[in-house]
């Protein structure tokens, strides 16, 4: 019986994870971009080059790297917005290129851009996404009640988004991301450009997702945030992974006095 339970747990655990294998993404350059690159005959640029990693449920996986490292490209491929040039991504045992709609049903995506419609009310915005995720009305009302009290949204739920403060908008965006209770949540530099209070709300959400056993992948270039949140990390620079292990292992291998310096040593030193 114990073996059976362990087998079930292991099977569920593997089902929820994200597995990226030899992922490569090339973009075709337009004429202007080719001129700017200095090599007019270079028609393609490799944004992500042979990247492999795994994100497991109940842990926060941090994708760390400077701007232009390829973080957003990887996250967009996981969220099925972009198609890989080569390599595979499995989200909950589903191939991203074969069943993108199925993957999106169980995935939440949040970036620093709130991505909200100004002319809708907070309630209409959240209901819109709940409908797209095919949530039944009873489940929606239950989930709404939970999220509204968790995020203190009851006071402004019927106000148009254009009239909300940035903190309120961030809350609406969080509610929109997890209204369908996804088992995989992708955060693309979610705190960039936000004030302290809004950042704190996001950090709380990320930690809550971990507590609930969700698979969390999160990108950032802020080392303090990485230190606070991440269990596993991959350091990315110019589309390639330089380090991929637990955060503890990274700290153990540090050659500089601070995380920031070591990050710079790994990334800038490599170029």
């Amino acid at each position, binding site marked *: 019986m114990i073996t059976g339970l362990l087998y079930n747990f292991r099977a569920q655990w593997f089902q929820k994870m994200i597995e990226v294998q030899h992922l490569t993404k090339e973009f075709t350059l337009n004429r202007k971009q080719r001129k700017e690159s200095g090599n007019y005959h270079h028609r393609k640029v490799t944004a992500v080059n042979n990247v492999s990693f795994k994100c497991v449920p109940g842990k926060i996986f941090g994708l760390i790297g400077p701007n232009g490292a390829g973080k957003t490209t990887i996250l967009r491929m996981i969220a*099925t917005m972009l198609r890989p040039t080569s390599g595979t991504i499995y989200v909950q045992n589903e191939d991203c290129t074969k069943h993108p709609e199925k993957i999106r049903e169980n995935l939440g995506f949040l*970036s620093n*851009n709130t*991505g909200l419609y100004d002319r809708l009310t907070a309630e*209409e915005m959240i209901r819109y996404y709940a409908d797209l995720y*095919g949530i039944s009305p009873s489940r929606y009302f239950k989930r709404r009640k939970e999220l509204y009290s968790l995020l203190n949204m009851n006071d402004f739920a019927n106000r148009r988004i254009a009239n909300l403060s940035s903190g309120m908008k961030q809350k609406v965006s969080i509610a929109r991301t997890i209204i369908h209770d996804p088992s995989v949540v992708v955060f693309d530099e979610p705190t960039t450009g936000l004030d302290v209070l809004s950042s704190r709300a996001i950090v709380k959400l990320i930690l809550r997702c971990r507590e609930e056993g969700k698979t969390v992948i999160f990108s950032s270039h802020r080392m303090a945030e990485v230190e606070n949140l991440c269990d596993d990390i991959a350091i990315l620079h110019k589309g390639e992974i330089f380090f991929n292990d637990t955060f503890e292992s990274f700290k153990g291998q540090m050659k500089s006095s601070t995380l920031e310096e070591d990050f710079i040593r790994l990334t800038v030193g490599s170029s």
Partner: protein
Amino acid sequence: MKKIGIIFRKELKDTLRDRRTLFFMIVFPILIIPLIIGGIPKIMVSMMEKKMTERITIAIIGEENSPELMDMFGMADSINVTFNVEIDSIEQSIRKKDIDGALIIPDRFSEMVNSMETAQITMVYISSDDLEATKKRMESVINKYRESKIDQRLDRLKLHSKTLEPVKINHRNIASEKEMIGKLAGGWLPYMFILYCFMGAMYPALDLGAGEKERGTIETLLTSPAGRMEILLGKLGVISLSGFLSAISGIIGLFVGLQFMTELPIEIITTMKSIIEIKTIALILSLIVPVSIFFSAVLLSISFYAKSFKEAQSLVTPINILILFPALIGLIPGVELTWKTALIPIVNISLVTKEIIAETVSSALLLEVYGSMIILAVVGLFFTRWWFNREEVIFRG
């Protein structure tokens, strides 16, 4: 299908809350058509009336050469006659607005008129002047003088006025009023409907494509379980509906405009009103459906390509001309609906609408127009789907 409906309802709600879109979709067509067909002729008529009755000053050089003509000018309403202008300073005086026009009567004028010769008289005026009122008013007095002289000459020669008219043509135009109006003014109607359809679809298309990209909402939408085709169809549905509603607003505007159009003869107004009958309108609107889908597909493709609302606006401007130019072809007299022109998009809509109004359209050509427009709409739809699936378009950096 369910997701298309969800997206359609949300986009429609969002669009109807945008005042700018509402203005271009409903208010603008309803206001502008009455203004064009009702207001402008009214303004022109009242301006003409004013110009024809307001007091003007005419300088006459050589007044002693035709006292009879002088008397006529003296008796004309609201015309002041002055003799204090030198022949060399006429142009300068007109330009300085000291006088409105001048009349130069040469020596021996009366003598030549009375001896059955042709006497010359010179009118000086500025033809760019407001509605040429000065010219018309001087001509009117001179014409009265001429007619009286013709009568005198006929009396002297003991001739009847019929002598000067050996042949009189009786016109029998078998074209009905509807045909006449359909062929003459019918070109304007499709032009307006096409214009409004395009304008009505334009703002929602820019907002639902480039606007979404600018606000970052497209990224969120693409991570939802809705497929690209479902997103596209939901958006296209709203944009097409906006274009279609705008064209309907144009028809309402036309109807409202006709209520204020009092300057035209009553028969023409009655005929024009009879054009707005359910059968004609239903036929025209059914043609607008594929047009609005095609416009929506073109506009949404451009909108998805643009990085911002502003860029989308600048990209749409030349397309505007490209699409509306064929609609103008319908206004050119002599361009007829044939099996060849029925295949040319937009031009065919323009031409077939004229035929529908004139009630001279052939079923085969009408079907050909429908066929070509439906094919065009489907091609536009598939192109937009292909375009929307291109990463370099949606994530154009």
